[in-house]
């Protein structure tokens, strides 16, 4: 152990703030990247699953038109 006590370890002879800022940002960014990547795989899979289910439903029912249109006469003057 290079330090006498825990407080000396935190203070690092005045260099503590720099060292701990670096390690803090490193941990936050790396962990953030890892968690975000994992979340993205999950959301991608869920989006694909919804797509498949929608397709399966579409095949069961006969295709109905999504909207119908009626002609409306509008006077132009």
């Amino acid at each position, binding site marked *: 152990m290079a330090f006498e006590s825990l407080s000396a370890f935190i203070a690092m002879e005045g260099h503590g703030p720099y*060292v701990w800022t*670096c*390690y803090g*940002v490193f941990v936050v960014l790396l962990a953030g990247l890892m968690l975000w990547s994992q979340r993205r795989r999950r959301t991608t899979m869920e989006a694909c699953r919804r797509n498949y289910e929608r397709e399966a439903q579409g095949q069961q029912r006969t295709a109905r038109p999504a909207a119908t249109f009626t002609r409306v006469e509008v006077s132009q003057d």
Partner: protein
Amino acid sequence: MWQFFHKLGSPKWFYGIATRLMPWLLVVGAALLLAGVVWGLAFAPKDYLQGNSYRIIFIHVPTAFLAQSVYIMMAVAAVVTLVWRMKLADVFVKAVAPVGLVLTFLALFTGAVWGKPTWGTWWIWDARLTSMLILLFLYGGVIALDRAINDEKSAARAVSVLVLVGVVNIPIIKYSVEWWNTLHQPATFKLTEKPSMPAEMWVPLLLSVLGLYFIFGWLACLRMQTEIIFREQRTRWVKDLVMAGRP
């Protein structure tokens, strides 16, 4: 040999291998990184010149090292994409570029914070920091180009050309930035190069470099899997895979 090469190009085969490999990569990587960092922070001796601020080295050097080698890996993958049109290679480039960007940013940030107690200012236009900054721009360009092109195939090939042009330029940039640096501020104090580093310092450094490599491997596998699912969602095996998770 050829069969292996073909298999390697198959996204399905890769997906399976990655799933089996990833827990190991994560466990080994986290263990090595943690060991290196704890050793470096608490047990390595103090540097006689810089005091305790040198302990930033145990994350600065791994991130800087990896940021550069990720770009080289991307360049190799770019050659594979352009020559053999292997799907996995361009999945790799796309998946890994943001990781490279984050690592480069971390190297820059830790370098700048390290500079404060060592040089007395947050930023010095030092050769290493400046070429790191340019590497950050290169990563930014790759990601921006990839986002801008809608068609998957052309995006892959255009990005490959850009990565290759960048990798040809990296040595030239490094050399010219070093030359420029000596021109403007002769012989500054170097951050990392030590004539002789005691084993209590370089062993934890080596551990954390290796650990970050494994973590990078895990990230690359995970992000490549995501990209593969997205691209191959019209295939049978991805459908089975996705639906298998749910009743």
